[in-house]
């Protein structure tokens, strides 16, 4: 069955090329049946790629080691759950996942717009098919997931232990969904430019898809941060790593797009800006995929050197040049008649928010690509670290939080000065209370930047809560409903608006968590023997004793930690380190491979609304090293039961000698609010994305399909 894989991919590629031709021909001649045929080609590709991805998944589930990627990324001891995820731990599999998701999202978009916007859709589907053809071509010619090897090995290498985390199941598909969904705004912006239909139509059509892309990409980033916090053993959630940055850049420009398209819808302004932003976001999404896959920048995600750099670079160049040419050649059509009436208006707030978001994306772009820029300019590769990023992103984030409170309160058009006082009295008071509180607590002098974030956060929360309360009150006055019913129907009837406000609340809380946990964190790296204790952030942490456990895949050595504060017991934490058995007995020896393969941290974590107590352990194997060496030498051909016995004996010796272990202890205030804020923001986005009941009814099918204009 696996042998059918490349044939299916080839058929998909052929169909993609046909679809591009048919769509363009249909669009140019106005022959609707050709454009329809092109659209059906997209559905066909979605079906073909679903089959192809299914075949690959089946090979992983059945541990078919004659397939090269299966042997290199999975094993019989890999649990089925992780075998599914192992498919996208491989470059070949992840590219197939990319194009498969793209085909699904494209089909959905084209299906929903099959009766409207036919003039746009024909060109848009040609662009989407172009994306698909590029990625299908990659999987067919350069990174074939269906490559066969013979003889087939009896056992596979297994999924990298670092990737054995439930997040592996959702983090990559989420990110890739976000990336591929941003191809839809790109395609429709390009189509609008080609056809010069630059009114609000294309903007309205992609709104929900842009929001879905933004939501899934954001969720992917958030999951990645959580994963890093819980798994990588360093206690951070963001490291300004190139690949993290690559996913943040399209998210930021996507956020800008979600705001600026409202200005085009409501006021008919910012046409050129919106088209450029949609195109730029699409390109950044491809750039993100490129960064992960090329290994061009040093990152923990760059999974080895890859040969795909050239084709990707060429593809990005085509997208970039095409976009610039399109926008430049349509600049007359992009000129909008609408002008900003007043500086004190919602559109001005959105415009400033856009500039800040794009500025932020640019700063991150510059810092991320600086190694390449500096190499080109000075000849030496230079890098900038997290402090450099923090210096620029902190003030910009501050402005963003402030705007998230100002924007919703201002009206479109202009807001009178007398109204301003009424709108901002309460939020300003909230900020003032926060300021006084922080000054009294001594936080103001300890970290002014974080304190500033707290103050503007109080302002923004005050403003958004006031807006929601105002709306609820107005509804109550109209309908006489109870407060809760009024609030619910307010949210239901104005999903987009109030969903957006909920997102603001979540986002502000998230940034409060980021500011607090980075400014007021206590971290300590200590070496403790059983019985010894260390003090971190007002807590006493005592190493009570070692722990151990074993199963088929790993040996686990850990510690029992007793956490107390002022003599009062707070928590018992049991961090451990899992040593995954390596297949490489050449390097580590028959027994050594049980202890010297890859290892991961299992945290001892106590999460709370106020603070997290985070602990990780690095056991010291030096005292048993000679037993391991001894066993390697004396039993080079041990069978599995002898191996089991020897490993058990060595673990027992470790437990008896109970040597000092290295601990990383972190007390991090408010870090839980990052995840709480994230969940609230996701909830808000879901509210905004859900079709309003009235709109769902309005979307009755048109009696006759709209005619395609001929060019």
């Amino acid at each position: 069955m696996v042998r059918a894989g490349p044939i299916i991919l080839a058929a998909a590629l052929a169909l993609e090329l046909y679809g591009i031709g048919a769509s363009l021909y249909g669009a140019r001649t106005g022959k609707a049946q050709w454009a329809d045929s092109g659209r059906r080609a997209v559905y066909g590709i979605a079906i073909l790629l679903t089959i192809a991805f299914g075949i690959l998944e089946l090979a992983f589930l059945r541990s078919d080691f004659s397939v090269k990627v299966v042997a290199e990324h999975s094993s019989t001891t890999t649990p089925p759950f992780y075998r599914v995820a192992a498919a996208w731990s491989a470059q070949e599999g992840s590219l197939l996942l990319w194009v498969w998701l793209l085909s699904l999202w494209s089909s959905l978009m084209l299906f929903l717009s099959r009766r409207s916007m036919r003039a746009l859709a024909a060109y848009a589907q040609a662009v989407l098919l172009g994306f698909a053809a590029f990625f299908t071509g990659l999987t067919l010619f350069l990174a074939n997931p269906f490559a066969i090897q013979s003889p087939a090995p009896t056992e596979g290498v297994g999924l990298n232990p670092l990737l054995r985390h439930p997040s592996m199941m959702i983090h990559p598909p989420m990110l890739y969904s976000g990336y591929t969904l941003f191809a839809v705004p790109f395609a429709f912006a390009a189509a609008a430019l080609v056809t010069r239909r630059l009114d609000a139509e294309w903007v309205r059509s992609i709104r929900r898809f842009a929001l879905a892309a933004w939501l899934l990409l954001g969720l992917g980033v958030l999951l990645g941060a959580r994963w890093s916090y819980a798994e990588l053993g360093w206690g951070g959630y963001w490291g300004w790593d190139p690949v993290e940055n690559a996913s943040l850049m399209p998210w930021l420009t996507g956020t800008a797009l979600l705001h600026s398209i409202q200005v085009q819808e409501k006021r008919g302004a910012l046409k050129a800006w919106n088209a450029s932003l949609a195109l730029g976001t699409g390109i950044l999404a491809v750039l993100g995929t490129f960064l992960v896959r090329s290994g061009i920048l040093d990152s923990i995600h760059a999974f080895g050197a890859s040969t795909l750099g050239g084709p990707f670079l060429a593809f990005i160049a085509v997208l970039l040049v095409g976009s610039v040419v399109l926008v430049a050649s349509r600049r007359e059509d992009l000129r909008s008649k609408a002008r900003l009436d007043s500086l004190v208006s919602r559109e001005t707030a959105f415009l400033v928010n856009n500039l800040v978001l794009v500025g932020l994306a640019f700063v991150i772009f510059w810092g991320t690509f600086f190694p390449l820029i500096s190499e080109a300019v000075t000849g030496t590769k230079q890098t900038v670290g997290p402090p450099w990023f923090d210096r620029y992103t902190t003030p910009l984030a501050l402005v963003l939080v402030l705007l998230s409170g100002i924007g919703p309160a201002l009206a479109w058009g202009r807001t009178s000065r007398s109204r301003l006082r009424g709108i901002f009295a309460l939020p300003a008071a909230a900020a003032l209370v926060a300021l006084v509180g922080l000054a009294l607590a001594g936080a103001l002098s300890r970290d002014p930047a974080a304190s500033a974030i707290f103050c503007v956060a109080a302002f923004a929360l005050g403003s958004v809560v006031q807006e929601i309360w105002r709306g609820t009150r107005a509804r109550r006055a109209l309908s006489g409903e109870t407060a809760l019913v009024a609030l619910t129907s307010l949210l239901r009837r104005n999903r987009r608006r109030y969903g957006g406000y909920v997102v603001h609340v979540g986002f502000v809380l998230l940034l409060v968590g980021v500011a607090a946990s980075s400014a007021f964190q206590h971290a300590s790296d200590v070496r403790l023997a059983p019985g010894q204790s260390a003090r971190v952030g007002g807590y006493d942490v005592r190493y009570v004793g070692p722990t151990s456990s074993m199963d088929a895949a790993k040996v686990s050595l850990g510690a029992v930690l007793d956490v107390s504060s002022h003599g009062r017991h707070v928590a018992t934490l049991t961090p451990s380190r899992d040593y995954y058995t390596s297949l490489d007995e050449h390097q580590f020896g028959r027994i050594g491979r049980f202890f010297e393969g890859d290892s991961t941290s299992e945290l001892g974590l106590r999460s709370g609304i106020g603070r997290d107590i985070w602990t990780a352990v690095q056991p010291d194997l030096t005292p048993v090293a000679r037993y391991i060496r001894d066993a390697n030498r004396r039993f080079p051909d041990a069978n599995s039961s002898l191996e089991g016995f020897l490993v058990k004996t060595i673990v027992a010796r470790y437990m008896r000698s109970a040597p000092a272990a290295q601990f990383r202890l972190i007390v991090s205030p408010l870090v839980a609010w990052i995840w709480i804020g994230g969940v609230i923001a996701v909830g808000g986005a879901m509210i905004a994305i859900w079709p309003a009941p009235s709109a769902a009814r309005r979307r009755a099918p048109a009696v006759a399909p709209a005619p395609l204009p001929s060019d």
Partner: protein
Amino acid sequence: MDPGRKRRIRLIAFLSAAVLLAGALVYTTFAGASSAKTPTQLLRTADAGSSYQLTGIVANGSLRRARDSLSFRVRDRAGRASVPVRYSGAVPDPFREGREIIVTVHKAGDGFVGERDSLVTKCPSKFKAARGS
């Protein structure tokens, strides 16, 4: 003020802000960046006081753990030249001998001292399995 002039002023204000930001970006990156170096390059030239991004492989058998720091040697990706590094702070899970790392260091005496929490270990794409043995 007539609207055309107002718009021009806004545009100029915006453009100057953008130019200022861009200038600050260029200046701070070129002034504050640390150069990426291989062990061989560091052995040839390393000034006390400047920091470098050292990229290389943790030499086999060189790792020592002390009470609150690690000592190891970093060697060239392809080659034998190596420099000693003392490091304290967060150690990522994949860190081990034979792995490729990136760490920010400055010269101290004969060796190099790693900046706290600056150690990055590259994810191995897979276990290097020696099959058929």
